[in-house]
């Protein structure tokens, strides 16, 4: 209703929306409270490897059989995760406690709009509000159970899906965002905007991962920068934007192949430099989450004694 709203195409919708807190946020917060750590994987730029990274982070975390991992794919228009996990065509079931995610492994589950489409090739041509409604349903109605990690994979951009996630998870104590980029400036341009977005919505940033850093020619073994870091790449950008840099991942063509075949690159090619790099980045993320837990517990401990 502000003067800044004059002429905005969204004005009528905003003005007539019911005021007051959204009751669904309460339900979502309650569901999220059973999940120890919530991580959001963002980019801003498309095709940098968000879904690939999310899937492999999930595989890596779930290699500890005592941990339960859930993955939520909020890319409504281009849901890649069912394919990357090798569970395309699986069905989602409904029970009294909500929608059951699809189990990729005993301790690894996935929810994606891809499972809800009767025909995988059909386009989901939805405007923003409908996508938001779907995301809300995913957060509110999926019964993850009590899990250790929920990884939320997002589409590129800073629009409806991202605003919705930030809004619906506001009270849910999200651990933070992992921002993926590739080295070239055209990608960094979009990723800087994503970092600004995270700050605007008070989403802590765990760090930046630079993907596709270099390509090793399988014939002559010389490393080529396919996406040249003409302005210093992800590391320099992270320094400039004052966010931690988690590491670089080289481009191994077998990664793409594993994703197409629905397999985990970490188990298929354990001796690749890319696998080592994934493991190092993963341990930094786990360390961050563990530390955050300890800080929270000691804070509440202090408050109790006070």
């Amino acid at each position, binding site marked *: 209703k502000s003067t800044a709203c004059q002429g905005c195409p969204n004005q009528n919708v905003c003005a007539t929306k019911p005021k007051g807190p959204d009751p669904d946020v309460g339900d979502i917060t309650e569901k999220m409270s059973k999940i120890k750590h919530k991580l959001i994987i963002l980019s801003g730029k498309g095709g*940098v490897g968000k879904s690939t990274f999310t899937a492999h982070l999930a595989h890596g975390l779930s290699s500890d059989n005592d941990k339960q991992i859930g993955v939520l794919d909020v890319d409504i*228009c281009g849901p890649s995760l069912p394919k990357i996990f090798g569970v395309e065509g699986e069905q989602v079931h409904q029970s009294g406690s909500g929608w059951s995610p699809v189990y990729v492994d005993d301790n690894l589950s996935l929810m994606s709009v891809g499972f809800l489409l009767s025909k995988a090739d*059909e*386009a989901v*041509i939805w405007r923003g509000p409908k996508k938001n409604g779907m995301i809300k349903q995913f957060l509110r109605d999926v019964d993850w159970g009590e899990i250790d990690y929920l990884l939320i994979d997002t589409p590129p951009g800073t629009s409806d899906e991202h*605003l919705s996630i930030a809004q619906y998870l506001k009270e849910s104590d999200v651990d933070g965002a992992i921002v993926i980029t590739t080295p*070239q*400036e055209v990608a960094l341009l979009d990723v800087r905007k994503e970092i600004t977005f995270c700050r605007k919505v008070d989403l802590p940033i765990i760090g930046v991962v630079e993907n596709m850093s270099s390509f090793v020619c399988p014939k002559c073994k010389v490393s080529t920068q396919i996406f040249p870091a003409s302005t210093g790449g992800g590391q320099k950008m992270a320094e400039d934007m004052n966010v931690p840099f988690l590491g670089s991942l080289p481009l191994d063509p077998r990664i793409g192949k594993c994703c197409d075949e629905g397999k985990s690159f970490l188990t298929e090619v354990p001796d690749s430099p890319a696998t080592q790099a994934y493991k190092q980045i993963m341990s930094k993320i786990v360390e961050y989450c563990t530390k955050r837990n300890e800080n929270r517990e000691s804070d509440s401990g202090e408050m109790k004694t006070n």
Partner: protein
Amino acid sequence: MDSLEILDEKLTECPANSEDAGRSSVCEGCPGQTLCRMQGGADPDQEIIDVRMGAIKHKVLILSGKGGVGKSTVAYLLSLALARCQSSKVGVVDLDICGPSIPKLFNVENQPIVQSPYGWKPLVSPNEDVKVMSVGSMLDSDTTSVIFRGPRKTGLIKRFLKDTFWGKLDFLICDTPPGTSDEHMAIVKLLKNVKPDGAILVTTPQEVAVATIKKEISFCRKMGVAVLGLVENMSGLVCPCCKETSEVFPGRGVVSLAESHNIPILGSLPMDPKVTECCENGRNPLENYPESPTVQGIMEISSRLIGLVNNG
């Protein structure tokens, strides 16, 4: 909570792009119902858009569905090839509101958008004098994020078409963001009366990308947009050291997709680090590296496109 059966029906039966938008029985309870109802029906700005777009011979959308396959790069290279090799007057409108790459590619980053009595003056790139319009040129700094929900993005896209003084052009290339959402619906709706020539679909070889292209083909079919053809980007990498071509994103999906859907392959573009470097620095690869296989590839694609739009 919707049962899964009802959800499936809603997913496939959403009439957002038709006269029934917001008014069909399937719309009851949908969060987008109010918006669709408001946005359906006749639009007074459409007449102005029709006049502006009427002065442009060919309107071509560059679509993908999957991010990072090189839509903007293909839009850039194609517009240079059309201008240089086909002597065409070309404009590019960047419909990626959240992640606008076009100003950097065209080396117009420091040019401000100026108002004239006839509308916003599009920026003119030093590379082949291509006219460019992008939200990127309206931002104070490159860290400024544009956090718009759908309707606001749609509003801005409309202004790009309605308020920009494009003048007479042979081609308007519309670069889009990944997805099949607000921006894509907006451009198809806004260009409906002036009959765009169609869409070029860009993909990379791997199956994960090709799978999303099938959705994009479905989008085009549902929205009545002709598919002009496929471009396979990043089809291989010519190693600068040993000159062997390696597969970076292995896959054979594009050929089988083209066959099964009866769509021509307009061409394949390998990755050439020299061309990538040009794009990074806003330089013209057609001028600097004319012998590059990527440059050769885009020149062939541009002449195939000319053939298609002139025979259509």
